[in-house]
Structures are given as C-alpha cells and as structure tokens.
C-alpha cells in the first residue's frame, strides 16, 4: 500500500516507469476485431473469386453468402463492444489510434466503392489491400506491433500486383490482403496477450 513518506527522485523514476509499463499493458481488444473482420473479408473475397472461377457457384445462395458477411460482422462487433463496455475499467491510449486509422480506412473504401460504381475498373477492389495495409501499418507503427507493420507493408505491396491482374486474381489478392494484414496480426496480438 502507498504511504505518504518523503520521496527520493530515484523512487519517483521507479513509480513513473512502473505505472507507465502497467498502462501500456492494457489491452485494446483490437485482436478480436482484427481476426473477425480479417476472416470475414477474406471469406467475402474468396467467395467472389470462386464465383468467378467456377460458373456452377454463380447462384443466389453464394451471392447472398458473399454479402451476408457484413451484417454478420456488424452484429458480432456490436455484441462484443457491448460486452467490452460492461467490463471495461480502463480505456487505453491506443484505442483512438485504431478508431481513427480504421475509421479513415472505412471512409476511403466506401467513397471508392460508391464513387467508382460507374468506372470500368473496380477501383475499390484494387485499392482494398492498399487502404487496409495503410491503416494496419499506421496502427502497427504507433503501437509498435511488428507483425502489423510487416502485414501492412505486404498488403500495400500486393496492390502493385492487383493493378495489372484479372478481376478473379484481384479478388484473390484482396482476400490474401485481409489474411496477411488482419488475421495474422490479430492472432499474433492474441498470442502476445496470453503469453
């Protein structure tokens, strides 16, 4: 228990460094959302790829499944957030980093999606790994998470291949981008948390 004894400057340094270390260890809960959205986006693009590659799969069920991932992700995220809010005792500083980097990503993606609807080239599909990679790289750089930094860079590099690829391969690259930039860093965060 803390007492009101006179402090030495050396004691102050120890108190500050201990407290900062404790604060830094607070979990943002980002791992869950990285894995969830990474897996759902990966599934979304994989189904789109399979639909284009295998004509037999181009039916109503597959088409519905492709878009069903978004409301499913939204519902799961809503309940997870609600559960987190009930338990939450602390809000880590990094929480806002994720909020702004992924908020910016989502905004940019939807602008490309809707504004590019009349374009012959699916801009949103080409830019998906680029935007996701940027968001993951930024968040990873600030939170000093090396796997996110690497995942973000690889996803950005995938855009270079996507630009000149066929529509089928662009879908496959987008799915791969989600796997590398979200699922793998998310799993790494989870492992680190339990270590």
């Amino acid at each position, binding site marked *: 228990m803390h007492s*009101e004894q006179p*402090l030495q*400057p050396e004691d102050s340094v120890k108190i*500050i460094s201990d*407290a900062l270390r404790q604060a830094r260890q607070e979990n943002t809960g980002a791992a869950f959302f990285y894995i969830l959205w990474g897996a759902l986006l990966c599934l979304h693009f994989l189904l789109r790829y399979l639909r284009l590659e295998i004509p037999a799969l181009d039916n109503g069920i597959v088409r519905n499944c492709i878009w069903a991932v978004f409301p499913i992700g939204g519902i799961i995220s809503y309940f997870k957030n609600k559960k987190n809010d009930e338990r939450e*005792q602390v*809000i*880590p500083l990094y929480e806002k980093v994720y909020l702004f980097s992924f908020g910016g990503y989502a905004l940019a993606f939807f602008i490309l999606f809707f504004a590019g609807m009349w374009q012959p080239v699916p801009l949103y599909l080409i830019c998906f790994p680029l935007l996701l990679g940027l968001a993951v790289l930024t968040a990873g750089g600030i939170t000093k998470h090396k796997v996110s930094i690497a995942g973000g860079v690889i996803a950005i590099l995938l855009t270079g291949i996507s630009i000149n690829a066929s529509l089928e391969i662009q879908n496959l690259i987008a799915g791969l981008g989600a796997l590398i930039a979200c699922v793998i860093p998310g799993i790494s965060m989870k492992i680190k948390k339990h270590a």
Partner: protein
Amino acid sequence: MLKPLDPLLHSQLRLSIVSLLIGLEEATFVYLKEKTNTTAGNLSIQLEKLREAGYIQIKKGFKGKYPVTTCKITTNGIRAFEEYISDIKQYLHLD
C-alpha cells in the same frame, strides 16, 4: 540551484495515479484502486486533491445499474507531469 519539485506530484500515490493516467485515455476508480494498491478512502482524498489542482477530471456516471467514477488527465495535468519529469532529471543530473 535546483527547482523545488511540485509538492502535489511528489507523493507516492498521487504520482502513481498521474503516471497511470498519462498512459491511458481514462480509468475507473476501481482500476486505480487495484493498480495503486491503496484504500478507497485514501484514493478518494488524493484524487480530490488532484482534481482541485486541475490535474485530473473526475466524471461520475452509471454503467447499467452501477455507479462508475472515471478519471482522466487534463492538459494542465500533462503539463505539470512533464515539468515534474524535467525537474527530476535535473535532480538526477540527467540533463
């Protein structure tokens, strides 16, 4: 000549509280009590002193049916903490 250290921060418990809050967006009373390993009464007194000095903000609300007290560091608090760090460095001849 060494500058005297901020008496408000130069206390074990208050320094712990401010150092925790500087690394967080905000924290509840329960969290601070657990991390500083102190009694609720003592923590309340120290938080009130920091609030009076304008170093922290205390918000009282409800989470479901339960009351929750949340603390957040202010700009004044951040400035005071930075100044304290710089003074400590001088004491330790780190500058």
